[in-house]
Structure formats: structure tokens, C-alpha cells
């Protein structure tokens, strides 16, 4: 098989927590792109289908529990030596029963290793209570270790810390020939196992599994944390990885958590079941030969409450920016430290999704009508329009990511959201900025750009549906996603394609029951290979508190004199929504009109006289107890209507399946101010 290489796609797959055993499959379309049927992309798909988008009824199971999102990985074959350029446009799906290079594929054996290493990692908050993002790793003296004195162990490499603060069920293997009904769980009861180079599943009986209950008495407000998810295979030979159950448990004393849950991102000894890890596979052919496959990586994120709302800056925008500017991905676009004026972005590929993202923000935020109209205009821009008739002055609309002054300037500069660590306001990536400026200069292609292969499409789409730009710490991944050390950088030499995580080679034959298997692992800005748990460990402890907190805030740093509140992550953390039950139907005209906005997170425990605190539970533990009540935002045609009424139209996105009463929450339009002023006690965020 020397003429062919095999790769798992997507290179990075995203699952999402839920409290149901049931799941749907991660989207195969991108939010912000309109599909041929007219539906906005980004919707997850129904299990057992290739690409059938879910409806409003699919977010919860029959018991009302939130379904998990599973990531589906597939293997694609490429001609060897084809990694010289990106995109290749190549890639053929490898399925059991199919042929590759004259051989028939008879089995695929997958190995996945998930872990959660959050509690023995550096805090998101560094010295002085500051979110510095990757900046803190430029001066390691600024870093603060989470749980720095856990059982008197202060060395991050101490075996007690590695064992007891990690959740590590070890690897799991599953083979396609075992059938689609098999489920392999990342729990304590399921044996650790992996597939070796000859595709034999090898049990690792002495693998030092670790779960929180092994070492401490726990406070378990949502029940015990016993699993990080599970594996299945599908009928195409693909792998389906479903993540955890949104559990969070705390080390306790006298029945109460030893660390009160009072902080947005750093709550000490609170475990959750988010996780990540490598997705490896071995192909088995009819001549009993095998072939290795370039690995993918799985990550568990927060629930996808608004899957069709594209982030203005997606993880794709950040990853693409890193690869373009630092790893030579597209020399025609960027070479020798310079963007190339001759490069013409594609309007549908590179420009329109960002415009659609602008248009979509209104469904999760309390934009006033004037801004909604402006955003809708941007979203309606066509490739045939004169850019200057729509945006006469590019620089007074879009924040320049290279301008410190722009970064501290709010409206009218866009995006109108909070910025990344140590930046007041959000900026598009440098590559996005260049591509958009090329469009404005009329140097663009009205049609599609270079064709992506099917696996390359999955790589891109998966990350397009994730939150970028503002990693403090984020929803699915955090600032390390911009660190070149995270990736296999000699992707052409290794013939693995771009965006692949630099996987640590783990020798499971050396696992012993008496010492931890995983190490502290990857540290941003250092060339340390990436272990299971090394991506999710940069996220909040636990994720619930961060989600609850990140509705609206003052900028940080807050420009002098500013008291206006801005949104944190509006595309994925809806703040203000339009409940379907408040839509008004005009029977004569057979039309629907959206009604009053309410807060997405609402009800008892969320009331406050302080605008800076609206739309969230005032006490973090209350969100933990109610996270599953939050509703989902979905486009009109996917919402069932009552008999005799017209369907909900496309291009309206309504809240469905909320388990909060609609109530009479009051959502004034932006701008709102921190008046009455909300004063917090001195922050003790870092530990």
C-alpha cells in the first residue's frame, strides 16, 4: 500500500456533553453557509443518516434529557506524496467492503484514548487575577497551578497529582467487524484496550485507570461521574465518539464541596467529564495486511445550544490563520511574512460565511432594530454587489486586528463583542481581515475557490462550528489552538495533511497499575507532544460555571469611561432569545412574527437588579442544577407547527425545547450599562 496514505477526518472532531444516553451526530455542514435546500448549515444530523439535519424534536430524548453530540470520524485514502499543497481536493472514503489499491478492506479497528486533565493544569487565571491566555506562557513565572497544594503535593509531575487529579479511563478499542450495536464505554468497568499495528485488540489489564471516586469522598450534585463517553462504529466503517454526561463532582468534606463554586472558571477540586484524546485506526485488508492511519483527535465541548449561529470568528478562522501565517499552508495567500495582494478570496467560501455570521447574531443577542437591519443588510450582500455601496469605508466598520487602538474601541467597530485575553474588543483574525479587505477592494472571486476533498471539508466544517476569537477560555477549545506546537508541523514530510494534532506516542505495554500512565503533558509554547486530555485541560473548571457567567460583561481591560456591557460568546452562549411560544401567527396573512425576547438562562435564581448580572444564575451551583433546562435555537422550518398553520419560515431562529417557563423576563435592547453598578468581592479566581 505504498502508493496510498490514510487519514482520519475530521482532523479534530467535536462532541458535546448531554445528560442523555442518546446522541446526534456532529454537523456536516457549517453554520453561516446556506445549504442547497435553503436551510442554514450547522445543524447536527440524525444518527444512522449521512446528512439528515435534526429537527426541534431531536435536541432531547423522550425523557427530556439533553442528547449528547457525537463526533463521527471516517477514514479517507489519498495518493501518497500528495501533501504538497492545500487543499488537495482529493480523498476517497475508506469503508469496510471497499477496495483500496486492489485490496479489499475487511475491517477497521479504532483506538481512542480520552482523558480529563483539568485539575492538574495551569489555571486560566494567572498571577494578579488576570486572564492572559497564551501570554501567560511567555513568562512562566506568571502561571499558577490549579490545586497547587493538593494533598501537600506541589509538583505538577507528582504521581499523586497525576493519578488523582486526572480522570483517565485509558484507551478503548472497537472494530467495525464487531457490528454497529457494540458500545465501548470510557468507564471504570470497561477494560482498557488498544489496537496494535497488526490490528489486534490488546487488553491493558493493569492500566492505572483513575476516576474521582477512587481517591476522595465526593459531592455529586448531578450524580456520580463514572464515564467520559463511549464509542460505536457505523455501517460505513466510521467511528462515533460520544462524550460525557455533563456531570461535575467535587471533592467534599462533611457532605459539602471543599471548594465553594464561586468563580467563573477556576473552582478548585471540581471535576467534570469533558475530555479529549487521539483517534487512531488500523485498516485490515483481505490479504491480512494492515495499514496505519494518520490519527484524528476528539474533543468534548459544551452543549450546542445554537448550532446554526456561526461565530464571527470560528475556531477554523483561528486555525486557518495560524496555518496560513506560520506554517505555510497557502503560499499564494501568505508567504515571506506577507499577505499576497494577488490573492483573490472566494466570496462564497471566504467572505459570505462571515457576513452570514453577522446576520445571525441577532437571534442570540438583544441587538436593537437599527443594528438588526444593518446586520441583515450585511448578510444579504451578494457577490455581484459593489462592496463600497454596502460598506463605503472598510476601516471604520471592521476592527483591524493589528491596531491596538481599534482593539480598545467599541462601536461602531465590529465585531461588537468582547475580546480575547487582554483585549477589550473582539477582532477578526488577520487572515480574515485580509480576505475581507480584498473583497472590499473588489479583488475576489464571485464563485467557489479551490475545491476541498471530502475529508478536508470535514476538517473545515467541524471547526467552523466552534467558537474562536475569544479564548477566556472558550467553549470547545482554548488558546492553545493557535499554538503551532499543538500540530504536526512537517505535515508535508509526514504526508499527513494539515491540522493534525502532534500526538504523543503512548506505549501501553508499559502501563502498570501502581503509577500514573499519563504525564503533565503538553504545555503551550513548548514542543511537547500532546497526550489525551491535553486540549480540554485548558478549559474551565468546570465548564458549567464559565457558561453561566459568559453572558454579558464589561470589557477587560475596560476602556476609561466605559460602562456599556457587551456579549462574551453570543453565537454559542445565547443571551437573549425568541421563544417559539411567543411567536405571533397572523391567520389572515398566514405569517409568523417573532415575539418578545427573553433571556436564554432565566427563571428562579436568575433575578437581579444589576444589568451586569442578567441572563444567568446568580449562584453558580444553581446553573449546575439547571443547565439542562436551557433551550436550543433552531431555524423555523425545522420546528413543527400546529395543524392548520403555515410552517415557520426560513431565516428566523427560535428557542425551542427550553424547560424554563417563558415568564416575563425583560430584555432591553443593547446598549445596556453597568448601572446600577455591580460590585463584586475581590476576585479569588486563581488557585
Amino acid at each position: 500500500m505504498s502508493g496510498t496514505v490514510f487519514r482520519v477526518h475530521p482532523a479534530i472532531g467535536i462532541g458535546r456533553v448531554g445528560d442523555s444516553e442518546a446522541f446526534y451526530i456532529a454537523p456536516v455542514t457549517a453554520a453561516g453557509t446556506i445549504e442547497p435546500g435553503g436551510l442554514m448549515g450547522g445543524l447536527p444530523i440524525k444518527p444512522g443518516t449521512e446528512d439528515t439535519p435534526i429537527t426541534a424534536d431531536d435536541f432531547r430524548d423522550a425523557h427530556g434529557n439533553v442528547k449528547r453530540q457525537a463526533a463521527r470520524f471516517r477514514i479517507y485514502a489519498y495518493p501518497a506524496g500528495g501533501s504538497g499543497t492545500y487543499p488537495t481536493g482529493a480523498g476517497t472514503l475508506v469503508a469496510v467492503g471497499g477496495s483500496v489499491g486492489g485490496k479489499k478492506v475487511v475491517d477497521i479497528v479504532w483506538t481512542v484514548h480520552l482523558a480529563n486533565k483539568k485539575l492538574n493544569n495551569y489555571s486560566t487565571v494567572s498571577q494578579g487575577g488576570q486572564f492572559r491566555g497564551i501570554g501567560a506562557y511567555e513568562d512562566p513565572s506568571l502561571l499558577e497551578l490549579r490545586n497547587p497544594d493538593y494533598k501537600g503535593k506541589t509538583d505538577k509531575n507528582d504521581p499523586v497529582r497525576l493519578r488523582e487529579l486526572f480522570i483517565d479511563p485509558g484507551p478503548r478499542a472497537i472494530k467495525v467487524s464487531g457490528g454497529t450495536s457494540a458500545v465501548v464505554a470510557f468507564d471504570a468497568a470497561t477494560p482498557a484496550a488498544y489496537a496494535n499495528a497488526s490490528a489486534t485488540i490488546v487488553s491493558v489489564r493493569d492500566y492505572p485507570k483513575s476516576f474521582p471516586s477512587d481517591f476522595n469522598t465526593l459531592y455529586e450534585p448531578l450524580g456520580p461521574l463514572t464515564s467520559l463517553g463511549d464509542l460505536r462504529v457505523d455501517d460505513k466503517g466510521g467511528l462515533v465518539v460520544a462524550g460525557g454526561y455533563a456531570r461535575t463532582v467535587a471533592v467534599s468534606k462533611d457532605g459539602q464541596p471543599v471548594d465553594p463554586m464561586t468563580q467563573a472558571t477556576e473552582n478548585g477540586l471540581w471535576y467534570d467529564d469533558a475530555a479529549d484524546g487521539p483517534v487512531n485506526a488500523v485498516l485490515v485488508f483481505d490479504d491480512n495486511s494492515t495499514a496505519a492511519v494518520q490519527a484524528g483527535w476528539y474533543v468534548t465541548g459544551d452543549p450546542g445550544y445554537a448550532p446554526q449561529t456561526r461565530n464571527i470568528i470560528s475556531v477554523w478562522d483561528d486555525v486557518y490563520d495560524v496555518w496560513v501565517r506560520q506554517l505555510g499552508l497557502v503560499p499564494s495567500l501568505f508567504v515571506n511574512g506577507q499577505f499576497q495582494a494577488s490573492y483573490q478570496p472566494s466570496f462564497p467560501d471566504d467572505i459570505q460565511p462571515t457576513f452570514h455570521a453577522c446576520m445571525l447574531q441577532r437571534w442570540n443577542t438583544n441587538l436593537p432594530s437599527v443594528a438588526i437591519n444593518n446586520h441583515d443588510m450585511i448578510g444579504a450582500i451578494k457577490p455581484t454587489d459593489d462592496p463600497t455601496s454596502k460598506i463605503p469605508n472598510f476601516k471604520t466598520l471592521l476592527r483591524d486586528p493589528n491596531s491596538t487602538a481599534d482593539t480598545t474601541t467599541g462601536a461602531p467597530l465590529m465585531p461588537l463583542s468582547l475580546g480575547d485575553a487582554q483585549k477589550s474588543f473582539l477582532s477578526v483574525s488577520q487572515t480574515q481581515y485580509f480576505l475581507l479587505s480584498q473583497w472590499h477592494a473588489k479583488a475576489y472571486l464571485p464563485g467557489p475557490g479551490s475545491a476541498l476533498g471530502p475529508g478536508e471539508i470535514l476538517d473545515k466544517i467541524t471547526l467552523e462550528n466552534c467558537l474562536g476569537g475569544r479564548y477566556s477560555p472558550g467553549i470547545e477549545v482554548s488558546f492553545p489552538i493557535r499554538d503551532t506546537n499543538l500540530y504536526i508541523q512537517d505535515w508535508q514530510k509526514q504526508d499527513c495533511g494539515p491540522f493534525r494534532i502532534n500526538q504523543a506516542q503512548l506505549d501501553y505495554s508499559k502501563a502498570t497499575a501502581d503509577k500514573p500512565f499519563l504525564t503533565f503533558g503538553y504545555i503551550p509554547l513548548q514542543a511537547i507532544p500532546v497526550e489525551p486530555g491535553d486540549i480540554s485541560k485548558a478549559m474551565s473548571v468546570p465548564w458549567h460555571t464559565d457558561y453561566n457567567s459568559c453572558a454579558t460583561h464589561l470589557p477587560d481591560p475596560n476602556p476609561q469611561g466605559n460602562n456599556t456591557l457587551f456579549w462574551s460568546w453570543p453565537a454559542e452562549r445565547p443571551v437573549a432569545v425568541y421563544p417559539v411560544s411567543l411567536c405571533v401567527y397572523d391567520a389572515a396573512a398566514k405569517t409568523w412574527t417573532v415575539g418578545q425576547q427573553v433571556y436564554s438562562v432565566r427563571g428562579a435564581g436568575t433575578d437581579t437588579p444589576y444589568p451586569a448580572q442578567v441572563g444567568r444564575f446568580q449562584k453558580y451551583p444553581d446553573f449546575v442544577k439547571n443547565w439542562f433546562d436551557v433551550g436550543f435555537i433552531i431555524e423555523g422550518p425545522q420546528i413543527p407547527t400546529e395543524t392548520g398553520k403555515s410552517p415557520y419560515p426560513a431565516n428566523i431562529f427560535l428557542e425551542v425545547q427550553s424547560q424554563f417557563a417563558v415568564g416575563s423576563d425583560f430584555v432591553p435592547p443593547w446598549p445596556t450599562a453597568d448601572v446600577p453598578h455591580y460590585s463584586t468581592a475581590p476576585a479569588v479566581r486563581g488557585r
Partner: protein
Amino acid sequence: MGSKRLVGAIIAALWAATSLPAAAQPAPTPCTAPSTWFPHSQTPEQNSAGFPSDPNNCDFHQWAWNAFLWLTQDVKGEPRFEAMPANGIETKAGTLDALIGRSAQARTLDIIDQAGPNGIMVDLQGHPIYYSIHSDSTFGDFLKTNGLFDPAKLRAFDPNTSFPVGTLTLKAAWKVVNPGENVSTFYTRHAQIALLTTKNGKIVLSGKTKTAAVALVGFHIAGTVANHPEMIWATFEHLQNAPDLPKKMSEMGPYEKVSDKNWTFYKAGTPFKDCNINSAGSGALKLDEAAQTLTPVTQVCRMVPYGGGSDNNVANIKSLNDSVHAQLKGVWNNYFDVGAIWFAANNALKPNCTFQPGSLECPATSGKPLLTGSTQLSNTTVETFTQSQSAQDNCFACHNTVQVTSPNAVAPSLPGLNVGISHVLINEYFAAASHPPAKTKH
């Protein structure tokens, strides 16, 4: 005004010559109203063209009060601002209607939406506050002379050209008078007011009107003077509209009462957290169509008395108000200058600037704020819901010269223009450009 400046110069010269100890320094010259403004029937027109080239803070406030008095002066039975002459500009589909040339008395009061975030102010009796917009012939003639009633010509207009000296644009806020209500301290008149209805859950104009007595509660004056093409933005209110906060808004607790007294738009004892709630913007406002009343009502508080600014600015406003009130008689004596805002530098208006702190401020003087006067100026009846947000808490926060992106896919966006400082012009541009005249068949 000239004599006061002369006195000031003499005092300054004496101070330099004698170098008096601090305790013996003379008090600053108070900002007062010249006696020549009174009686009201003889108030001269404000001298916009002769505005001093090196004005002090008082000069701006004096211009504002002078303009208020002149514009409210009785002309054939009605205030001058309501009797501005027609200038004969014809309007038709696809061209701007800058509200020129029609008598305000004949014009229906059909604006209830405030500028900004979808606000409707509701008085304590449940009626919306209505607004009327007025402009003078200088404004209209400028548009006509430059062909700016044609949207295409406005788009292509020289971005550096500003409105000429003497331009005035005005906005009046009107409260519906209830039967038996004592409005003896207000200027009142009868007007056709637009009636409201609910359509698809939204409160909209029904297309019907009725005659009602209305009382003036707020009055904006924006006008250009020599060296200040950005306009002086001044605003006046009725004395009994709403209470000032008893302390800085950043120090107010949510449950603190703002006033123990009833005001026209504030019920005694209402806590701070319930002030200036934008019910319309949230969709929470409900209409009783038969009674033409809305709920909930708006409890109005003045977040920044006199629009803040320097101590000298506030002192000048207070002093000038006192001076006018001591000399003025009649109903107009019940109104006061809330404040005014302008640029600290002469002729600093430039296109594509926000004039707010930040990268688009376009400061004329490095290191110094461009805005001066009442730097957090709002009228509680016109900008009720944007008094506190730093993003919109002064006139220039919205009235600037950056481009205005189109509200729809039809009208081209408007480039950054000096004349974009006027929202009368911008709004009419988009009204016209969004409905271009039908093409003629050939």
C-alpha cells in the same frame, strides 16, 4: 455678550498685573443672561455668525438660551419654531423630505420612537411622548442649493463640506394633556396625534389620528455657529419633568429612592432600579387600544444633571438658568437649559470620525478630549433610555460623521460625510433611497 467678554479681559489683565494672593482672587464672572434679551418679545436672534472665535464655556450656553428664547418667541400667535416659513421645496417619491415647508400645526405628531434602542417613553398616565422635528430655512436652502434631495447626489457629496453657519435643527417632545390636568406651567397647543394599534404583537401607528392638547416637555436645539460646524447641541426641559439623581449613578444602589417628590414623569419613592426602563425595546409594552394607553409607564430619572462636564460647565448652566428665570416672565420661564455640548477646537468637524474616545475620534488636539461642555448630555424626554450607557450618553455618540450602513438591501449605504451629523438628513436619505422612483419606460 461682548461687554461680558470685555470685563473678563480686564479682570484677567488685573490679575496678571497685581498677582493677588489666592484668598483675594475675584470670583469668576458669573454666566448670566443679558438684560437685552428681555422682555421675551424683544429677544434678539442668536448671533451665530458672530460667535466669538475664542469662546468660553458661557458663550455656548448663552447661545443656547438665546436660541431657545428666540425660537419660542411669539410670532403671530405661535412660537417661532412652529411658524418657520415654507421654502417651497417639493418632495416626491425617491427624494428627501426633510420636513421643510409644512406648518407644524398642520403636521401630525406621529413620532413616538426615540432615537437609539427602540425606546418609547410612556408618561404616568399611559400616553406615549410624541416628537416633532423642525428645521430652519438655512438647512433647507442648503439641501436645495446642493441638490441633496437627490440621494445619489448626497452620496457623492463632498465629505468635508459642512452645514453653513445659522443652520438649525430642532426636536420637540410633547406630552398629551389629560382632562383636568393643570398644565398652566407648560406651553400647550392642539395637535393631530397619531393613534396606535397592535399588529402581530407590535405597537404600530394605526393610520388614524385625533386632535389632542399637547404640552411641550423637552426641546432640542442643534445649530451651527461660526467655527463650530459640528453644531452646538443644546437641550431644554420643563422644570418638573424628572428628578436628578441625588448622587453619581455609579454610587446609586438599586433600591435607593431617587426622590420623595412626585414629578411629571416620576412617582415619588420609585427606586433607582426602576428608572428609565425601556419596556418598548424589550417588547414588553402593551397597548390598550380603546383607551390609547400603554403599560408599563416609564419612571424617568435624570442620570447626569446638566449633562455633567466640568464644575465650571455646571456652574455656568445653573447661573445662566437662574439669570434667565429671574428676568423671564410667562410660561417659558418654566423651562431650563439642561446643558449643551460642542467641540473644544474650532472647525474640527471631519468626515469618518466618531468624536468619541477611541481610534475613530479624530481629535483636533492631541491628548485632549474633543468634546466639551455637558459631555454626558441627554434630555430625559428625548433620550430617556440612553442616559447612562457610555456608548450613547451624549449627542455626538450618535451624531457623528462615520458612514451609515444601510438598513436594507435596496438603499446604498451613506459614506462618511460632515453633513451626516444631521440624522434628519440621514433618515430622510434612507427613506428616499429605499424607495427609488419607478423607472420610466422608453
